[in-house]
């Protein structure tokens, strides 16, 4: 049992609880371009990590998604312009996306950009107030780190892209909440 890879679809899975997708763990599917980042995956880790590092991570994540989102927008635009008798792969890809995906994708890009700008401002403020230190050289390093990762995002399919983005946006939300709790002195975080 130990040496064997898990059987492939041995039994029917109740899909009503879980979204229909490839549940194979071993496949490289859904390996997001940000999977290599070491991020706290528990609440206590997020609480224990230094604030600077948490901030850095947030910025890095946001930066890592900037480029892939713009590429994704172009990708959707391109596929929406294709006629119906285009390649079957393109058809298959565009089938996964709803009709208003282009506007939504643009919305998402804008929101991410605004969020990143806001976090940068907060970071500056924190650094100026001495809440966090400048040890990690601020936002420049996070930007660089994020950019280096983002190049790998081009290989993902649309569904993986969305899944990865959802996961990372969930992360960013949780980290920001924890960070906020930790900055405000009155809360017991």
């Amino acid at each position: 049992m130990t040496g064997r890879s898990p059987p492939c679809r041995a039994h029917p899975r109740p899909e009503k609880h879980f979204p229909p997708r490839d549940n194979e763990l071993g496949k490289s599917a859904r390996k997001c371009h940000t999977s290599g980042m070491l991020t706290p995956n528990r609440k206590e880790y997020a609480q224990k990590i230094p604030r600077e590092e948490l901030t850095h991570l947030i910025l890095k994540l946001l930066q890592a998604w900037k480029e892939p989102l713009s590429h994704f927008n172009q990708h959707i635009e391109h596929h929406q312009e294709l006629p119906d008798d285009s390649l079957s792969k393109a058809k298959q890809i565009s089938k996964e996306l709803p009709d208003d995906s282009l506007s939504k994708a643009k919305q998402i890009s804008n929101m991410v950009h605004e969020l990143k700008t806001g976090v940068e401002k907060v970071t500056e403020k924190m650094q100026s107030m001495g809440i966090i230190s400048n040890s990690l050289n601020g936002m420049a390093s996070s930007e660089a780190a994020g950019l280096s990762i983002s190049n790998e995002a081009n290989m993902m399919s649309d569904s993986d892209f969305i899944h990865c983005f959802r996961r990372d946006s969930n992360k960013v939300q949780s980290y920001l909440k924890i960070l906020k709790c930790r900055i405000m002195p009155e809360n017991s975080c």
Partner: protein
Amino acid sequence: MDLRHLLLTLVLVCANDSLSASDDVLRLPQISKCRSPELETFSCYWTDGNFYNLSAPGTIQLLYMKRNDEDWKECPDYITAGENSCYFNTSYTSIWIPYCVKLVNKDEVFDEKCFSVDEIVLPDPPVHLNWTLLNTSQTGIHGDIQVRWDPPPTADVQKGWITLEYELQYKEVNETKWKELEPRLSTMVPLYSLKIGRDYEIRVRSRQRTSEKFGEFSEILYVSFSQAGIEFVHCAEEIEFPWFLVVIFGACGLAVTVILILLSKQSRLKMLIFPPVPVPKIKGIDPDLLKKGKLDEVNSILASHDNYKTQLYNDDLWVEFIELDIEDPDEKNRVSDTDRLLSEDHLKSHSCLGAKDDDSGRASCCEPDIPETDFSASDTCDAISDIDQFKKVTEKEEDLLCLGRKDNDESLPSLANTDTQQPRMSTRPENSQPWPPFADSIDAASPSAHNQLSNQNSLTNTDFYAQVSDITPAGSVVLSPGQKSKVARARCEGCTEQNFTLDNAYFCEADVKKCIAVISHEEDEPRVQAQICNEDTYFTTESLTTTGISLGASTAETPSPEVPVPDYTSIHIVHSPQGLVLNATALPVPDKEFNMSCGYVSTDQLNKIMP
């Protein structure tokens, strides 16, 4: 045989059912769900199936593997979450990392499931529901309450690790369907307009903000106003929409409306029910027109009828002739026609002044049965400036005039003009002042050529009708016998000599006519000046008296040489309490002292004249 077949199939079906109930069919254990209540731990649950009864009894195991692991690991805790469950505490839980769990019995895999913990979050139900009364309505029937609760204790909402949304549902106690409110982030919700006499049930459930599935419902909160000690005016029955009253009032309104319609449209209804027998109608004539006194249309309509036309006009030339233009070079023709006209149609055609500017000579307002004997003398309507003729004619003038008739009202469509309700003076033929028929139009300054012709050539004659008796070679039209001299004389008089009283912008018609006559030969702009002079042909008594005095002499003089022999005159305006305004010199002056004063005769004067 059929019955037996049926019985057999029934037996077989029952056997199948019993067989299926007897666990011959294997049902495998299945993972029913995996759930994380707070994004910090999670647990998986499975069902047994009928496995144990059939095969060798074994133990079912749940194995899990994270993505980065190499191997499957066994469930760390089978107990905490209950039977057939596996509980993963915080140390075993990693968020945002894919997991796979599988249900095995030794080497046999029953079920497998892969997920990520942040996707299986189903929060616990909220706790500590309570409500407070906000306010009650003035009637005491409805009230607003505020419901508040606490988030589930397991979810760490305070630190923000998880964000929850809440959905509240409520209903009356004896209802079956719950009313839902929109999910919201706050832990308090107002409920408006609840009936105080009823009891309610409230429940709340929560879900993670980014997911779609709700957790379990909380305990039901019972809202009872009576228990809270709220006074309630107990209505025996609820105030519902008073359908009964609506029906009653609707029926009454409808009945009233129907009655009103019937009353208002009574005539039409009668016509609908009893259609009237068609009566002969003159085509094209609308009795309403007559009533309204639209002389234009009536005249045209009447004229368009051949019957009427032949009755009135023996000669179409008369009609044509009237519509002459001053620039018309066919004077000779006209002269000859004039004779013809004067001889023949004098009596019939223009016996009355319709006082219209259309100059067609139609719209004879008199009855056609004018005795011809009266007009014997009027045959002399030639180009003769004969005073004797005039005298004769003037005696007969009244015959021509509508007012000489007994009752002109009905025979005068022109009289139907009810712009001014004038008291008509019915004059005796003997010594009456022939009142000209009423003029409906005060506007003597119609720019029509004919009108100006008439104005030009009869100084004080009527504006609207004039029998063109002759046309002088100079181009002026003599409108009635004896106008020549008058015209000639009028030219001697200048417009400016007259003392026009301009105070009220009223002009004496005589003055105006003289003015026009003077400038008539100025062919450059006769019309324009005529218009200017004739700007307002309203006459007031004052103006007339003032101007009349100045003209009195002249008018007194003029009658003898120049008295036009009008066949008819027209009334320009009638001031009902004051009298009529006539065209000047239209009236023969039996007495010198009878000062015409430009055609205005007061009632006193009239009474003097008339017997």
